[in-house]
């Protein structure tokens, strides 16, 4: 059955000869942009033979705000809050990437204390982002309850972020050159309490899902992406690592204070949805490990390097990438020596990872399409920018 459909599959709408199981016409199903599980405003045109996907096409741009263009008309500091609105479930990570890119362009470095606090908050944000992924992914596959458990834990992280900078979602937590706010008094205690609770709670999720026959059936062998394909398509982050490629920018090209901490990079073997699930679950544990090390050694000292009120980076260009929760988040900034960037180009992980969707979805059923969208962990704010 799969033979017949997979061979006859071209791009959706490309007019290849219909070659379906029953010789019937193919059904073009328009999934989204308003659909409960396309994670925002993704629109997927599916070419279906019965319930089997014969081809697909992602239509994006419904959330395009021209973030890169806006950057050309803002000063470097003014643009910083805009990047929070890209991957809005991991705003801290976005801010870190941007601040470090501008610092690199200007040749300044954040003080050690700022670096450790940045690392700590970014790892907390990674856990929050992964929790949101788990919640929605499980919901897409039909498990209702993990959603509420995950939001319960995510809430604790958001509380810590709120205590730190006053905002929960679009935090604008960092400043170019370091930090605006110092760590609040009981931050170490809050983080430690969260870490201790979270390690117990994550066992609950695994109880609900990892050994569950239905969960295994729905995730194993679904949306397989080989390591070569993943590299060829520029896929990064947990999706790449689940395909067995050990590539994590935190280890490969350490930034912030990651070189001071010990942590492992979990990798998968088969590159299927289950492996991506396992990799992300393990990443959350590793993030807890980093957080625990970080609260132990936040150095004393200043939190903001001397950068001055008006930023005028020298003429030049810079590319700086960080390991955001969803993959490699890169900023390419060109400076013409004025207070505004000449050009900012952002490499968002979700956008690049979404490329792999068609390859992963071919030959699977409609039910798997939502599982694959979920496992890619895309955020449309970042795809469309």
């Amino acid at each position: 059955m799969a033979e017949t459909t997979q061979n006859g599959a071209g791009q959706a709408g490309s007019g290849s000869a219909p070659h379906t199981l029953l010789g019937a016409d193919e059904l073009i199903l328009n999934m989204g942009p308003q659909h409960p599980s396309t994670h925002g405003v993704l629109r997927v045109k599916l070419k279906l033979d019965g319930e089997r996907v014969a081809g697909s096409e992602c239509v994006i741009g419904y959330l395009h705000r021209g973030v890169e263009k806006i950057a050309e008309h803002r000063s470097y500091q003014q643009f910083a809050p805009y990047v929070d609105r890209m991957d809005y479930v991991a705003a801290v990570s976005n801010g870190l990437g941007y601040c470090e890119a501008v610092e690199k362009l200007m040749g300044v470095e954040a003080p050690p204390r700022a670096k450790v606090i940045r690392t700590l908050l970014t790892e907390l944000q990674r856990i929050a982002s992964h929790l949101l992924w788990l919640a929605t992914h499980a919901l897409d596959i039909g498990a209702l309850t993990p959603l509420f458990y995950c939001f319960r834990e995510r809430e604790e992280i958001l509380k810590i972020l709120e205590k730190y900078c006053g905002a929960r979602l679009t935090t604008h937590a960092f400043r170019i050159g370091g930090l605006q706010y110092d760590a609040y008094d009981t931050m170490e205690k809050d983080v430690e309490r969260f870490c201790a609770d979270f390690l117990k709670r994550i066992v609950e999720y695994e109880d609900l899902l990892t050994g569950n026959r239905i969960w295994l059936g729905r995730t194993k062998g679904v949306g397989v992406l080989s390591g070569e394909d993943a590299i060829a398509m520029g896929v990064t982050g947990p999706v790449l690592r689940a395909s067995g490629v050990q590539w994590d920018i935190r280890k490969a090209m350490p930034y912030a204070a990651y070189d001071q901490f010990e942590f492992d990079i979990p990798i998968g073997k088969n590159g299927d949805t289950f492996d991506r699930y396992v990799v992300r679950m393990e990443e959350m544990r590793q993030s807890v490990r980093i957080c625990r090390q970080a609260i132990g050694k936040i150095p004393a000292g200043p939190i903001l390097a001397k950068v001055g009120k008006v930023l005028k980076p020298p003429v030049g260009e810079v590319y700086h990438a960080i390991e955001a929760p969803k993959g490699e988040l890169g900023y390419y900034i060109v400076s013409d020596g004025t207070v505004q960037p000449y050009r900012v180009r952002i490499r968002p992980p979700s956008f690049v990872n979404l490329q792999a969707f068609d390859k992963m979805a071919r030959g699977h059923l409609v039910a798997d399409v939502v599982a694959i969208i979920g496992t890619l962990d895309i955020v449309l704010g970042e795809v469309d920018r």
Partner: protein
Amino acid sequence: MTHGLQELLKAVLASPYTLPVIYGVVIVAVLPLVAGYVVLVERKVMADMQARLGPMRVGPHGLLQPIADAVKLLLKEDIIPEKADVWIFWLAPLVSVTAGMLALAPVGIGPAFQIARDINVGILFVAGISSLGIFGIVLGGWASNSHYSLMGALRSAAQLVSYETAAGMALVSGLLLGGSLQIRALVEEQAKQGVWFVALAPVAFFIYLVASIAETNRAPFDLPEAESELVAGYMTEYSGFRWSLYFLAEYANMMVVGSVATTIFLGGWLRPFAGVGGAAGTALDCLPGALLLGVAGYCLYRAPKQPVAVQKLVMVAVAGLCAALAAALLAPVFVAQALWMKPGIHGAFWFLLKVGGYIYLFMWLRFTLPRYRFDQLMRLGWYFLIPVSIVNVMGIGIALVLHWERGMHLALALGLTTLMTLAVAGVLVRAELKREEQLRQGAAGDAYAG
């Protein structure tokens, strides 16, 4: 003139159809309310399992939420898609809800209270009528003229065909043991044998449990309305009152399968150890009353802790209600004059408790398990449930023949049958696991071929 009226009234009262008609009207009037409160219970149970409170705003602890929901649904704009087939679109939900309600007709809530009447093909009637509900779903999905609806309808049709067979086979096992299709006879047979059929044919009960979840389109088999895939499946284009009819049909169907399972496998309105008399019997008879007294006591204990006066009042009122019910349940046990009430109200208590437990199990599964995929659902039905149920029915037939003809002890014969069926199930599971393993070794992308 008045004489004529009196005559007419007498004739009406004497007619054997009067009481069933009144019952029927009551059911049609009450069922939506019951369904609404089952939904409230479901939301509260779900909230409890998900570390939150559930509806709390409308009335104390959300007690009036179903009423508010019903009003909202009735007042909503009635939308019929432009390209829908209007007549079928209009008719389909009615078919579903009628089938659901009609199937409740012969269900016996107690020895004294059959909803309509005790027809002699009782179980067959229930099974037949409740399967008609699928027409409402298929027609509704088709008439909506929407891709999601169509796919939901197709899934639903395939699902029902696959699981009706297994459910039917499981029912046949129970009917073989009971020797009748009539509901009262089935329960009385269980009373006579002194054992519920779930103990004699546990495999059949399990198969019926799984198949009935699939038949009522509940999670983890809720593919026809799988929200994350098909938006709302066959109900996507429905809104307002029509949508609520589908909703009502779903809950009516849950009550139907719960009642059938209770009647055939769980001893209907019998209390546990129905044959036990004497002091132990009296103690068991006190159980319903004691249970309600316990609830009343707990409500009184919690009442002072409620933050708002109105909530305290409601807790006290609920406690009073429970205490009154407890008194009614205890009276026949201790007061000789009230003995005639005992079979009726005790029967109703046990029956509703068992149906409630069955539905609770449905809810519990829904909040715990992810959803099956369509091919997995079909595989489970055709490669596991149907073969196992057929083997089980044949085994039970053989066991009964051995019991009647050769005088073999019934429990022994049926125990051997159960073991044999479990062995067959084990072989099937092993074959399935092996197949999965092979698929994983081979091309993973082609994992669903065949």
